């Protein structure tokens, strides 16, 4: 079985963001970048499927500027077999990303595509579902457990009121939730080995897809700040504050 994982290069989750003064976006110069944490979980899951003998090959794909190749090298160092970089400097939206991934999927013919449920920068939570729709495939979003059977895959999903298990016909798109696995640390020798693994590059524009997006971002600004509160000395004071100042609640 062949697996495709898609990985996005994002600002590291622990970095505080800086907005550009002209409100055009988030300043990404000289900040630590990382693989989107949910995509890292996707790569880990693919590797575990390979280690358990279910998958034979893992292809990692990333779409974006040249530096996405660093993110792909991380996926290769974790254990992906080869990587495809679709280079573009355009700020693509999930629908266009899904269209690109569809082209790659039709070329590579994986049986399962695993990706993060959302990226921690744009917080859209769309690409996996869109890709499944464009391919006419089943979808298993927010997976906390994946169990591959003969012609189906059982996916346990984290849903708002608990857990739900679906059986998806293969091929399928699966998006990962936090508790699917804990990604491994990459060891130094594997980083060295990853440098020799194949990484091919295409330009997004060469794929013959209309990349005009249906979304225009007008501005990106700071959220309203909460004003600082007070520190109370003990529970009695807390209760009296709540009863007096927040009395319509209690």
């Amino acid at each position, binding site marked *: 079985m062949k697996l495709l994982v898609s990985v996005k290069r994002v600002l590291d*989750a622990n970095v*505080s*963001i800086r907005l550009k003064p002209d409100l055009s976006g*988030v300043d990404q110069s000289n900040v630590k970048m990382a693989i989107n944490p949910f995509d890292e979980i996707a790569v880990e899951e693919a590797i575990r499927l390979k280690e358990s003998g279910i998958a034979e090959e893992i292809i990692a794909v990333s779409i974006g500027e040249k530096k996405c190749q660093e993110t792909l090298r991380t996926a290769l160092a974790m254990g992906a077999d080869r990587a495809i970089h679709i280079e573009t400097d355009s700020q693509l939206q*999930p*629908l266009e990303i*899904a269209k690109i991934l569809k082209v790659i999927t039709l070329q590579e013919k994986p049986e399962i595509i695993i990706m993060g449920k959302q990226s*921690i*920068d744009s*917080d*859209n*939570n*769309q690409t*996996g*579902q*869109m890709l*499944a*729709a464009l391919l*006419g495939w*089943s*979808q*298993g*979003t*927010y997976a*906390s457990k994946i169990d591959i059977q003969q012609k189906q895959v059982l996916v346990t*999903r*984290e*849903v*708002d*009121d*608990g857990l*739900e*298990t*679906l*059986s*998806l016909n293969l091929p399928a798109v699966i998006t990962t*939730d*936090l*508790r699917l696995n804990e990604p491994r640390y990459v060891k130094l020798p594997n980083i060295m080995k990853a440098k020799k693994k194949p990484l091919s590059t295409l330009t997004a524009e060469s794929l013959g897809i209309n990349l005009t997006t*249906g*979304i*225009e*971002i*007008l501005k*990106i*600004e*700071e*959220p309203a700040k909460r004003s*600082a*509160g007070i*520190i*109370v000395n003990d*529970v009695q004071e*807390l*209760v009296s*504050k*709540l009863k007096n100042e*927040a009395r*319509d*609640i209690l």
Partner: protein
Amino acid sequence: MSVLVIAEHNHQLLNPTTENTINAASQLGEVTVLVAGYNCEKVATATANIEGVTRVLLCEDDRLQHHLAETLADFIITLASDYSHLVATASTFGKNLMPRIAALLDVSQVSDIIQVIDENTFKRSIYAGNAIATVQSLNKIKVVTVRASAFESAESSNQPASIDRLKLNADSELSQFISQQLSTSDRPELTSAAVVVSGGRGIGNKENFSMLEELADQLNGAVGASRAAVDSGYAPNDYQVGQTGKIVAPDLYFAIAISGAIQHLAGMKDSKVIVAINNDEEAPIFGVADYGLVADCLEAVPELIKALEA
């Protein structure tokens, strides 16, 4: 403008967050609500009595028992051409379904809006709530999901909307429902509760977590948790409040033994009043709390329960 809201329900009851979404949708145009399910006429009747709803479409079919995205999306795209907007709550139901619909219609989606500026323009939070984007949809049909906690709930109406029945004209066999483990609780639903009591890793163990349940019950509130508490097994996954869990904005939020990582703050910082109890006075949660108490939660919480009784 005509808006189709996809109702979320369990075939018996309308999910209360759908009422917030209907309110958001009524800022965009005339609202029709689709109730698709199985033996769910009760839900349609309740929906028809919500202010702002002009029409309810009811589709009952046993293939809709489990709200599978593949079947629902194939069905909803056959209705789409009558509407300018397709709208659902940004819950796991709506988040799973709407992008599939958008892609089948070849349009983009605007996810998790927190404000309607005009029929094409919305505000949404990005980077775990550390930035707010104003985005405009250029598509003819706009697919939108709504952050329920950012909108008031719609009022009830004494002039019920008409209910029209539809036949299911789609049948995807791509996926099948196998089983579910639902959390059963008599507490209010987390994303619409007026009071939320959340605990973090500092609670220490699953047994200690029950005192938060006691406090929540005393205030008729819901119980939440940080990611760390869920990962540690103190609370089930559906308790998680944060960037990638549930977004809440209750009147009163208790953050107990939660340090306040930005991913957690993203899920609760729009609460009206925030109370933080933590033994680390440097914890970032105190930076957003209206009332902070530096104390050991194992002592403070029982004391709080007692003091609130009085």
